[in-house]
């Protein structure tokens, strides 16, 4: 396995621990459906993913997963309150044009919302920016500036502040160290490489 796939799998296992078996799960930005496939196989969830790209939807369909091609906010607006037991937003939140709208809508259609993101405040990122004075590049941020999509990186502190400002209850949080495997027990905004939050209204 490459380092990236390895990291992806760690992310999956944390989220998998929080998902109740047999529940109805929505994955925003589902990609080729790796996480949903894992949840279907290990937790027998009833799953649906949303993604913008045709090829991602085709990959999900090949896996036997239900997937919807389109805008995630438009998708969620078509569902009644609490239709899903859990909405998952894994490594997607930094790509959203309007993260507040998506997160509030996800908290409406879902009983719980799991958000996983790379902590931009991680000390190596800070050091990298300080020393290089350029767009951060490492095994997580892999692309040059000129081949990157617009991104809105978020740190642990940013996210905690957002939840407080919007009155969103944090039911659980998991911070992982820079290796994304061992728990990070102190100063997460500085020392955590990856963060997963479980939110509720």
């Amino acid at each position, binding site marked *: 396995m490459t380092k990236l796939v390895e990291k992806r799998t760690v992310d999956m296992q944390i989220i998998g621990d929080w998902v109740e078996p047999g529940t*109805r799960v929505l994955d925003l930005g589902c990609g080729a459906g*790796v996480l949903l496939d894992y949840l279907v196989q290990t937790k027998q969830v009833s799953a649906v993913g949303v993604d913008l790209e*045709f090829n991602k939807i*085709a990959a999900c369909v090949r*896996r036997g997963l*239900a997937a919807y091609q389109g805008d995630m906010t438009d*998708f969620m607006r*078509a569902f009644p309150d609490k239709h899903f037991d859990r909405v998952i937003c894994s490594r997607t939140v930094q790509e959203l044009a309007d993260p507040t709208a998506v997160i509030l809508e996800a908290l409406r259609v879902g009983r719980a919302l799991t958000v996983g993101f790379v902590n931009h405040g991680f000390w190596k990122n800070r050091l990298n920016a300080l020393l290089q004075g350029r767009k951060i590049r490492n095994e997580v941020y892999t692309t040059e500036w000129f081949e990157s999509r617009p991104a809105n990186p978020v740190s642990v502190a940013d996210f905690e502040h957002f939840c407080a400002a919007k009155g969103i209850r944090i039911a659980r949080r998991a911070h992982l160290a820079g290796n994304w495997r061992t728990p990070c027990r102190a100063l997460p905004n500085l020392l955590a490489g990856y963060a997963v939050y479980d939110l509720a209204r």
Partner: protein
Amino acid sequence: MTDDVEVMTATDSAPRHLAPGDVGLVAPRDFVCRQPFTFKSGQIIPGFTLRYETYGQLNATRDNAIVICHALSGDHHCAGWHSPDDRKPGWWNNLIGPGKAVDTRRFFVICANVLGGCQGSTGPSSTNPETGRPYGILFPFVTIHDMVRAQKLLLDHLGVAEVHGVIGGSMGGMLALLCAVEYPRFTRRVLAMATTGRESAQAIAFNEVGRQAIMQDPAWNHGDYLREGGPRVGLAIARMMAHITYVSDASMDRKFGRRKKDGAVGDAYTFDAQFEVEGYLRHQGQSFINRFDANSYLYITRAIDQFDLAHAYGSLEAAFASIEAETLVVAFASDWLFPPDQNRALALALLRAGRRASYAELSTDLGHDSFLLESEELYALVRGFLERDEPYVFDYSI
């Protein structure tokens, strides 16, 4: 559906029907049901015929059938060739065949001309046993529901225990969806393309213009005409107009632009066809009247207009509540007849009803008829939906 589906060019040395991936020479068959058939309207005919074709073999468990449902002007001949001299193969030959997206080595593919049609199945041009003349407009009003019920009788007759998948575009998508609604345990998968749960006012309006062109033609004679005659002018105009709705501004512009027909020079002080697009549409109209019955056109467009899943079952969610099939809805960005939004509404309602449904959209610019497109992306999607990969094995050894 348009007639000018691009056909793959074959070399002179290899007959086209023997090309790899082609089902080859095929012959239609007739299913004759001698039981009286009661239409949704309550009207009854003493029996009916459905003309159909099959490709591939029904397996021992009788559960590998794929049912192909055709659109308004389509027919049962969806793959292969009737004769080596045919100008074109069946209308979905690019999708169906050995090793193709709908793999006839694996599946038993069935396609029937709809009830009310005119390509061999019983419809208004069939002989009314009570009068010995064509039914004309004495033929009972046909609904999509009637078409699906008649088709189910054929599938029962063929010994199909369970349908692996029902596939259709446009009106065919309506039949496919309704098959899953009406026969939930029988229907395992539905692939509906470029379709709708109910037409918009605009689509009904286009159909009405087509019907008026036919009915205002004096030769229509209230539907009473002989097989060789009838409202040929009206039917051709209906077809010319409908054809425009099956393509797009961009695709017509690419194909014709403002190019003039051969021989047309200078400014045109005449109403003869000057532009290539005019000649093309006239050709479309003329070739259509040689293969389609005007009364069938009235009946089938009316059936499409009447189709309204939400109204018939109370709501789309109620219609889909009993579906057991997995559904895949595919729309095409440039389809302005049954646009993406109407296809999305189907997938969203299925998901709200707790069903397993997917929605994918291809960004072609060919309009409504894009579902007939030669597209590797579309083929891969269809194959993936019908065949599915082996379960992905997760490697936890990190």
